[in-house]
């Protein structure tokens, strides 16, 4: 079992580490240096990394409008983010950041958050315009400068970024990615629908199927149920090779397996990466289903609920946020005043 767990971990680390390493190599080649690195090579490495990520990490079962928009917005956001941190011209960086914000706002909209989208566009658009003015005001008259054409330790930063991003992606995959398990359940369902003679054509080789099940179950939440499923798969040996005489038994076995897998999926979906909710929810119902009840799909028409929950559950926090804005404004005015101007006044 230990070996199986190690193998499973290695097979997950492989593609993630490869993708992230290519991405970081591209950043490393593109970051500004006194002698410009190979820009074309860096850009094409970045493109390869994004394509690999799309294939390995973001596998989508079926093409839908949401999937297309997700690919478009997230691809645009990541490309613009790369341009922002690697472009030597700060004005271009500010413009690329605007693209990052707009694409992220598209992702907000895909997540049923229209008010947050509008707020982010307004606040960040203002912030970016001001930043842009600052860039133009403080821009260096010379074409090259220490600030823009040198980076501090680009290689070390990219190595650190590689480890950070790989660890994050591995953790996210182990905690939230159900696509392997979904594929396995779909396979069992297909075998259940088809004739029993074709059982191993659908499920694959008997030994392979057992191994893949054990691998999947080592990652699953709820070890007892997972062990039950493995035991259920092993019980297949008692049934013998599929034929006309034990077709009913095979069918019953598959049904049982499918039911167990479905229950395990529901259980994992409900409990993966979740803290146990409090027994009594003290927040108002305006914000949607309480945490201790099964989640309902979030309606995109939720601005009214957002307003009501802000001014009931989060009233104190809203007041404190307003105070913080006021203090920040006063502070910004105070620290930019020239000392002699203060004396004159």
């Amino acid at each position, binding site marked *: 079992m230990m070996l199986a767990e190690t193998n499973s971990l290695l097979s997950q680390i492989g593609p993630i580490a490869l993708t992230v390493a290519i991405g970081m190599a591209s950043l490393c080649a593109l970051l500004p240096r006194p002698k410009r690195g190979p820009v074309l090579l860096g850009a094409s490495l970045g493109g390869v990394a994004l394509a690999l990520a799309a294939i390995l990490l973001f596998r989508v079962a079926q093409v839908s409008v949401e999937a297309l928009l997700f690919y478009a917005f997230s691809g645009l956001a990541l490309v613009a983010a790369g341009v922002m941190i690697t472009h030597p011209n700060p004005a271009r960086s500010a413009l690329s950041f605007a693209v990052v914000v707009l694409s992220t706002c598209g992702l907000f909209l895909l997540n049923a958050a229209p008010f*947050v989208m509008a707020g982010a566009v307004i606040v960040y658009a203002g912030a970016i315009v001001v*930043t842009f003015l600052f860039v133009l005001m403080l821009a260096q008259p010379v074409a090259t400068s220490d*600030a823009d054409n040198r980076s501090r330790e680009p290689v070390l930063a990219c190595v650190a970024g590689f480890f950070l991003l790989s660890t994050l992606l591995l953790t996210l995959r182990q905690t939230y990615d159900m696509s392997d398990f979904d594929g396995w359940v779909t396979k069992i369902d297909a075998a259940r629908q088809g004739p029993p003679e074709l059982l191993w054509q659908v499920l694959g080789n008997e030994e392979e199927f057992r191994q893949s099940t054990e691998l999947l179950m080592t990652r699953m939440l709820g070890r007892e149920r997972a062990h039950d499923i493995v035991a259920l798969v092993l019980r297949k040996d008692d049934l013998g090779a599929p034929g006309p005489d034990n077709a009913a038994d095979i069918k019953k076995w598959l049904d049982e397996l499918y039911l167990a897998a479905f229950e395990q999926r529901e259980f994992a979906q409900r409990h993966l990466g979740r803290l146990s909710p409090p027994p009594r929810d003290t927040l108002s119902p305006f914000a949607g289903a309480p945490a201790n009840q099964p989640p309902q799909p979030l309606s995109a028409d939720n601005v009214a609920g957002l307003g009501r929950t802000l001014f009931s559950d989060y009233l104190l926090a809203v007041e404190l946020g307003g105070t913080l804005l006021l203090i920040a404004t006063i502070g910004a005015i105070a620290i930019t005043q020239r000392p002699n101007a203060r004396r004159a006044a």
Partner: protein
Amino acid sequence: MTLHHYLVVGAALFVLGSIGFLTRRNLIVMFLSTEMMLQGIALNLVAFARDRGNLHGQVFTLFIITVAACEAGLALALILVLYRQRRSLDVSLWQDLREAGQDATIDTEPISAPPEEPADPRLLPSGRVPAHKSEDSYV
């Protein structure tokens, strides 16, 4: 699209922002990098709000935007003050503030000058000199 997909994009934006903050030396680009890290976190919270079917994640995101606005104001004010002192946006000019016992970083490699742009072409005077009266205007 599942929660996992959005969390991956959020994590990537966060890490790109942190790399930008660590490597770039222009104060304004460093400030933009921190804003990008905040964008990654906001995306995480909004995706969780949709997954859990309640609005608390969106409320958190609104507060993040509020704090980001305060941060933007103060950061630009600080950048202005720092620029007045040294007449440059290079953060390495402020390395006197480093921890005791750390060596100063000195740039050894010279910056290669950009290639000279060719001067605009000029037409040589040629042909017949046109006959024109001189001082004919009353301006």
